[in-house]
């Protein structure tokens, strides 16, 4: 009797899917690490819930944040998600480095299968649930402000994207506690991830988490692109847009065209696994090469989805902290667009060794090297922007400088890998791992950290602690060089990637250095959290309510910090490339308008939280073959969308009187603030009013 009921209710769940049960039955270090990680997820989630409950903040959280359609709040929530996931994936990285350092002619403490899960989740999380939310969050926060808009074009869709991403990230977190994750790497190559070789739930967790995430990213890209095309304030022509907006636009276009291939790849793999199709199986006509092409048709543009926004951030930061107009604006725009187009022409370099003809490899090798040209243009432009500028070595600027140096090194190794014959030698070794970390850590992480330091005062109204920022910066840079330069040596020496253990004693010293580097990187993350805590503690001393702590150039600095919900009481009118900077030099940029008008803003909506939660539950039901749950969730999702289409009262009016009051308070603060020169901008006297020097 029970035999029939439980599978219908719980699908293929069994008690041994819980790591605690496994650790109880078989208490090895490996199982205890697994159970410990699961415990951390549970304890972490439970303590957050308990803390909110004790503080009685659920109502506040729900009203002000979770159901908010304000692009600024959605942006901040994205970044919070990115930091949570960064923490987990970085811990996994440290664990892997420790294991490898311990496992030269020794078993180490993490078993091969567990190690395979570690590198699969590390890669999947870092790409889909750290990098993507991070840049989506920054674009969400900054871009509408920079183009002088009230909000993105589709605020509700924005919330749905956030929550689908969050639900997908939740699904990966659940895989730590219930069942196991894929061992197929972040790219999930079949036929290994097919039912025949991986019958477990792991690849299914990967498939549904990635599918939810990629749909969310497609929708974000659509939203951003339409926003940039349609919501620019009067006078904001394309060639007057800040460079960050340009990179956001190109990234969005890449998302619109490059995320669908991923959705197709994961969906076809799911068809294979769930209903016995033969797309990528070894038998009955399946062809794994289709997967490789589909996946990298997404995967290569993805690299530029990640890197372009960072290029935008560096352009803003270098210009601001050199007190100079961005050098070569037009060439930077062209370089950005060129990179976006070229990114679709090089995907085969991810599998030079997989049997296509030498001619084809040569074509793709040359196309790959071509990308170095526009990237080089950018580097020169940033250097020329600094040249004869009044360069201030603030934390965002330090990240920018570290990026320029480190990224060029990574670019050189990329040119090496772009030669197919050389690629044959180091493909699938740690050389490759070193190369792409060398691109993505400066090219994404440093950029996003620079962005958080640069725009944090705008978002929260106070500056981050400079000292801890420098400590964190030191850890990220030193840690990076120690952790990844040895991998070039190891890879050139033949150390295979994804190895749980090595047999070559000569690898040991390099693995030790890399292990130390990983620990320093983890300290970098810890320093960021300390910095956040210290800054929050001292926030009253570091307030910059006036809103322009760095003598900024773009529109986003012309509002209070944090900006009001409606961004601009009256939409700005732009006549140049650095409108706010020009305004400061020419006259009174803060002049209060003569009258205020009512502003329509979107009402909060619970459609976002509902779709994210239900979407994640749908994924969970599919992973565990709990069909009733999947059907229920699917019906709920469709029903939610239909029900929402019947809601007519979606706007809320902010009365002109309220706006006048909010604006008056800000204008009073401007009148009272003391303008400070650049050499004192990191001191507490900085209230966000920059001294104007011509």
């Amino acid at each position, binding site marked *: 009797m029970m035999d029939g009921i439980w599978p219908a209710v719980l699908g293929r769940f069994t008690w041994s899917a819980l790591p605690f049960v496994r650790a109880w039955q078989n208490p090895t270090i490996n199982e205890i690490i697994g159970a410990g990680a699961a415990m951390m997820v549970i304890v972490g989630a439970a303590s957050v819930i308990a803390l909110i409950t004790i503080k009685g903040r659920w109502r506040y959280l729900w009203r002000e944040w979770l159901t908010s359609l304000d692009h600024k709040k959605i942006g901040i929530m994205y970044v919070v998600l990115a930091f949570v996931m960064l923490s987990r994936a970085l811990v996994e990285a440290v664990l892997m480095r420790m294991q490898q350092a311990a496992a030269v002619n020794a078993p180490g403490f993490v078993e091969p299968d567990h190690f395979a899960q570690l590198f699969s989740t590390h890669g999947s999380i870092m790409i889909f649930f750290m990098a993507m939310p991070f840049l989506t969050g920054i674009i969400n926060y900054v871009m509408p402000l920079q183009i002088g808009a009230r909000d993105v074009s589709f605020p509700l869709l924005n919330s749905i994207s956030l929550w689908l991403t969050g639900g997908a990230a939740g699904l990966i977190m659940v895989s730590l506690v219930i069942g196991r994750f894929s061992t197929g790497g972040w790219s999930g190559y079949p036929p290994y991830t097919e039912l025949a070789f991986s019958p477990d739930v792991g690849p299914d967790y990967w498939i549904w988490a990635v599918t939810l995430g990629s749909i969310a990213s497609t929708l974000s890209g*659509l939203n951003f692109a*339409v926003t940039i095309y349609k919501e620019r304030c009067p*006078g904001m022509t394309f060639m007057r847009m800040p460079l960050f907006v340009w990179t956001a636009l190109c990234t969005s276009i890449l998302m*619109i065209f490059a995320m669908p*291939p991923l*959705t197709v790849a994961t969906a076809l793999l799911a068809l294979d696994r769930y209903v016995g199709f033969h*797309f990528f199986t070894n038998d009955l006509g399946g062809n794994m090469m289709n997967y490789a092409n589909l996946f990298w*048709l997404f995967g290569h543009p993805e690299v530029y989805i990640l890197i372009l926004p960072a290029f935008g951030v560096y352009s803003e930061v270098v210009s601001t902290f050199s007190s100079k107009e961005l050098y070569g604006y037009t060439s930077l725009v062209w370089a950005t667009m060129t990179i976006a187009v070229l990114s679709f022409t090089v995907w085969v370099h991810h599998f030079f060794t997989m049997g296509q003809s030498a001619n084809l490899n040569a074509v793709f090798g040359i196309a790959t090297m071509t990308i170095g040209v526009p990237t080089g243009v950018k580097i020169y432009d940033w250097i020329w922007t600094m040249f004869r500028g009044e360069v201030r070595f603030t934390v965002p600027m330090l990240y920018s400088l570290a990026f320029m140096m480190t990224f060029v090194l990574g670019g050189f190794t990329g040119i090496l890998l772009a030669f197919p014959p050389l690629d044959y030698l180091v493909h699938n070794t740690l050389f490759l791992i070193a190369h792409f970390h060398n691109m993505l850590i400066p090219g994404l992480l440093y950029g996003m950290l620079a962005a958080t330091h640069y725009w944090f005062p705008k978002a929260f109204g106070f500056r981050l602690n400079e000292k801890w920022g420098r400590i964190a910066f030191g850890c990220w840079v030193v840690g990076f060089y120690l952790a990844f330069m040895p991998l070039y040596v190891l890879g050139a020496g033949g150390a295979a990637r994804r190895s749980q253990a090595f047999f070559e004693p000569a690898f040991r010293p390099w693995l030790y250095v890399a292990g130390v580097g990983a620990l320093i990187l983890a300290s970098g993350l810890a320093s960021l959290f300390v910095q956040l805590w210290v800054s929050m503690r001292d926030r009253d001393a570091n307030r910059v309510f006036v809103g322009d702590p760095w003598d900024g150039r773009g529109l986003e600095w012309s509002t209070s910090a944090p900006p009001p919900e409606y961004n601009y009481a009256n939409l700005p009118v732009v006549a140049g490339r650095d409108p706010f900077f020009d305004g400061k030099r020419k006259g009174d940029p803060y002049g209060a308008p003569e009258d205020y008008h009512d502003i329509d803003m979107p009402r909060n909506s619970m459609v976002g939280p509902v779709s994210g939660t239900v979407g994640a539950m749908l994924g969970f039901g599919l992973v565990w073959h709990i069909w009733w749950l999947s059907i229920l969730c699917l019906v709920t999702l469709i029903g939610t969308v239909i029900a929402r289409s019947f809601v007519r009262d979606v706007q809320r009016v902010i009365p002109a009187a309220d706006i006048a009051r909010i604006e008056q308070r800000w204008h009073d603060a401007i009148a009272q603030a003391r303008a400070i020169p650049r050499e004192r901008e990191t001191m507490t006297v900085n209230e966000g009013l920059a001294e104007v020097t011509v």
Partner: protein
Amino acid sequence: MNAGEVKHPGLNLGSTDTDTHEQAEGDVFGFWVFLMSDAVIFALLFAVYGTMLAATAGGPTPADAYKLGPTFAETLTLLTSSLTFGMASIAVKYEASGSVLFGWLAITLALGLAFLGLELHDFATMIGEGAYPARSGFLSSFFALVPLHGLHVLAGCLWLVVMIVQLSTFGLDARVKINLLRLGLFWHFLDIVWIAIFSIVYLQGLIR
């Protein structure tokens, strides 16, 4: 904001009712972008289908599996439904009486459902004759591409039902109009995809 100062790409719908038109412009342009993204999915499935044509693994070949008669009937049904949706759009534009608009939408819905019925019957026949998706890579790629289009038509039918209900609830308010505009784009898009399916999948499969 003064619509004259920034010229946008995409639809510029004029200035008789500036606010509504501006709202519609963003919404409709956004839907075009969505359709581009959706078109990428179909394009890739066509590509996969192309690479798997020969992967029949000893099972039915395109010539064995496809039948021209029923698919031609499906084509006519779907193309006609695009025509009737066009008539519905004209009814919206000239604000014809409610029953005319209802009528055209209902006929479109009926044709959409008829298409689905014909297609399902077609699939059932194929499967009955041993051409089922798990038989070979070729049939897998067929059953990913063509039924995905059918799934879109199903979604379109559901959307039509919702719009018919909304019409009777709200009448022709701005949001109903914008949604009808988007649904129209979606419906014609499916027609275009079907023409590609008919030419590339069925005609190519039967003629060679």
